[in-house]
């Protein structure tokens, strides 16, 4: 019998966020998430000194609690690499697929205002030149300034549109706009369909 690995992934983009394998049983999502949601830390971001076009850098201190409603769990054939580095994988229907590696480079710049998360190109001169060949899903979460204070957004990069994309801050996806305060520190998680997870830290 094929060894099974239970993976926890984002509904919006299929990014794997965590994995667990327990002898004899396959746990449920509720039992492995615990109360409140899935705690996510150690997501790779852009290190300082920053490249001009990447926007905010990672502090390597980002921590997020992903709401349970945004997650699913599935038992798939075990993959050793997915166990030790789950963030490098997505759920591809019934299998685990490794994301293409940018080799240390980033595809997008990420910025934060009091009202929006801004995602643009890495061209420091023209950040509004970002475009996607196909409709591309994105999941964004802003955490801070205190634990439990979060903004959760889902969106789409429409195919062929070239611009600096702005996603209004909301407490829940599709909810009313919920601005954040200045002079505070925030963690940003950006999960773009087909691309590696990205975590940044911004102080407004």
């Amino acid at each position: 019998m094929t060894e099974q690995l239970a993976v926890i992934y984002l509904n919006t983009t299929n990014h794997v966020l965590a994995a667990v394998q327990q002898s004899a049983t396959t746990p449920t999502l509720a039992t492995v998430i615990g109360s409140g949601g899935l705690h996510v830390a150690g997501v790779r971001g852009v290190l300082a000194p920053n490249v001009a076009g990447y926007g905010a850098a990672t502090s390597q201190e980002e921590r997020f609690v992903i709401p349970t409603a945004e997650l699913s769990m599935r038992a798939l054939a075990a993959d050793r690499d997915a166990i030790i580095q789950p963030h490098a994988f997505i759920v591809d229907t019934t299998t685990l697929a490794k994301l293409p590696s940018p080799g240390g480079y980033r595809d997008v710049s990420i910025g934060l205002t009091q009202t929006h998360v801004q995602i643009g190109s890495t061209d420091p001169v023209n950040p509004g030149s970002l475009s996607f060949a196909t409709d591309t899903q994105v999941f964004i979460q802003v955490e801070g300034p205190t634990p439990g204070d979060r903004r959760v957004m889902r969106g789409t990069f429409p195919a062929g549109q070239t611009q600096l994309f702005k996603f209004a801050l909301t407490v829940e996806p599709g909810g009313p706009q919920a601005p954040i305060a200045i002079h505070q520190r925030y963690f940003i998680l950006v999960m773009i369909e087909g691309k590696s997870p990205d975590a940044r830290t911004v102080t407004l």
Partner: protein
Amino acid sequence: MALIQRPRFYEGQILGSTDLTAGLEYARSQEARHDRAVHSWGIADGLVLVATPQASATASYVAVSLTAGLAFDGTGREVLVPDQVHLDEKLFIRSNVAVGDPSVLYPVLLAGADTPALAQPTSHACTSAQASRTVESYKLSFGAPGAELALAGQVAPSIDQGAGGGVHQSRWWLLVGYVQWDATQARFTAISDTANGVTRHYVGVRADEVTAQGGTLVARARRAGTAKAPVAALAQTPTGGSLSLGVDDGHGGIVPSLVAYTDGTVESDVGTLTLRSGVPLVIGKPMLRLAETPAGGTLTFGLQTTGPQPSQLMQVDEHGNLTIAGVFNGLHGGAVKVASGVATDGVSLPLPDGITDDQLASGLVDLHVVVTPRPPGRAPYDADLANFPIWIGTPISATVDADRRLRCLIQWVGFRGAADLVEVLGGAADYVMFAVVKGATP
């Protein structure tokens, strides 16, 4: 329907026959309505067919008679047979119900029948030509095979009516039994109580409440003194009450088999007590049996098999020895349940099977977790191997918090001459979780 009238008399009234008859009919009708509405129709006593074997040179047959007895028909009429009566073969022949099959059963029917009669003269003078008495007689009849099925469809009189069976009234037929008929001999050959599921019907009581006066209420399936006939007794006891189910000891007493007490105790006096979810012999139905044995007793749970015993899925004997056919999933003092696996940073480690958060919270179970970081590999995902060809990953934390959430972080160092790169990323750890069940407090 009309309101009931009763006669009244006054001094000097000239009484006619209708006045006197009305007085009698009032009481008789009142009693019939009581018998019809408060009780159900049927045989009250006797009226049993008796077959006496007879033999001739060429064949054997039976002489059938009906014992004396009392019944009440569906109109509330009392039907009295004062003496044992012989069932006349000629009456059967005149009934013209015989068919060719000698094995079929013919219902024997009884109905009340009024017959006008003259009074017994007290002198030889002035005898009346008018009937001045009514004989409350009866009539016996034979039905065709299967006629018993129509008896349940007889219609009772409306509530204001008195007893039936009068001269110009239709009769209510009561079944007293069945006979078999041999047309060749023109004799009865056997009797029976039941045919086509229709049997003798005895009188009953219609009531929502039956109250005993002496502290014990008894229900019997047969007449008192009928040995081994089922008996149920509801009895007041010094501590409350009991409901006993047993059999007649042959003298009207009860030999209890099962007793339920008002304190919630259920007692078996036959050595076993069985709870079964379905009817007998339905294979697979759950059963629980408490049984006495020479050594003491056993409690057995299982599924019904083709025999009377349940399959032994679980059994406890008089020494407390527990035998089970399946897997024990419960807890016992000193037991250790183990779960092991591998999880990534952020996962809340699942508990071993059979262990719950409530058990942990109550202190019934202690949890011990051993966490060992997994080797992180040669480089982090998405590493810039062109500029940092060599990476070393070192676990810097591998802990489990109060929510059993794993914290496992890897510090990665990428080497590139003088300017190295340091990153902290999520990792994975193997874990072994021991759930230790505490023993009972001494």
